[in-house]
């Protein structure tokens, strides 16, 4: 991956790392919403919701258009479903597993001087 791709992936994961943003994305993928409609769904300020929408937009996951005084947001299905993005999501699942194996091994090395605590019968 070149630097541009890496930046894109960083933006994508930053955008998806927040529960509210994932929820907003789910809504705007289903249908176009105005930012004020979205803001009404959450117990946070209009400005905070607008900021979340901005992060999703920057990651290329949604697009905004203006209609009168309203800003309308809709999810970019193509961006969300691109195979590359999907493989990247899976990659992070695997990275999580690998990090947990690493942590498990490291925890053992730390307690190597302790007596074994998990004696269980071998199958």
């Amino acid at each position: 991956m070149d630097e541009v791709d890496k930046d894109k992936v960083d933006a994508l994961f930053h955008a998806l790392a927040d529960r509210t943003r994932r929820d907003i994305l789910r809504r705007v993928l289903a249908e176009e919403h105005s930012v004020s409609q979205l803001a009404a769904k959450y117990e946070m300020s209009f400005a905070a919701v607008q900021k979340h929408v901005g992060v999703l937009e920057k990651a290329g996951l949604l697009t905004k258009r203006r209609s009168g005084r309203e800003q309308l947001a809709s999810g970019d299905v193509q961006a969300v479903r691109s195979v590359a993005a999907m493989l990247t999501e899976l990659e992070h699942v695997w990275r999580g597993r690998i990090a947990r194996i690493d942590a498990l091994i490291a925890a053992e090395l730390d307690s190597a001087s302790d007596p074994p605590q998990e004696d269980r019968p071998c199958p």
Partner: protein
Amino acid sequence: MPVTDVQHDLDTLTLTITADFAAPVRRIWQIYADPRQLEKVWGPPSYPATVVDHDLVPGGRTTYYMTGPEGDKHAGYWLITTVDEPHGFTFDDGFADLDFNPLPEMPVSKNDFTFVEHDGGTRAVYVSTYASAGALQQVLDMGIVEGASLAINQIDNLIAS
């Protein structure tokens, strides 16, 4: 970080991840052979895995479920296809109902894990292949996106600690 290489093959829908662990091959094998250790690493912290049956032999079946933050359960199974203890194994990973009956309409991924000695530790290569982009999408729709984001947070915590 132990991950040393990642390959995305967009044509064959294959993800290949290489990681180096500071432990012997036999130790890495044990993590996969022991259901109590396997469940510690399989599910992200907010979707912890519980391994119910586990038999790491050719034709063996593993059943597991992951429990979400709302108490929601998502079951899956492994069908072990080949075993080369302690150097690796291959298996199909699919979704199941809560009685562990495979859900035939759901996608199945083919997985190939190998562990070889490398610089006094273990080099692990994980290869995971999906049949179609639709299958990949379904897997992600099943809540893996949630799991992935949580796993990312956990990685961040590990790095920060």
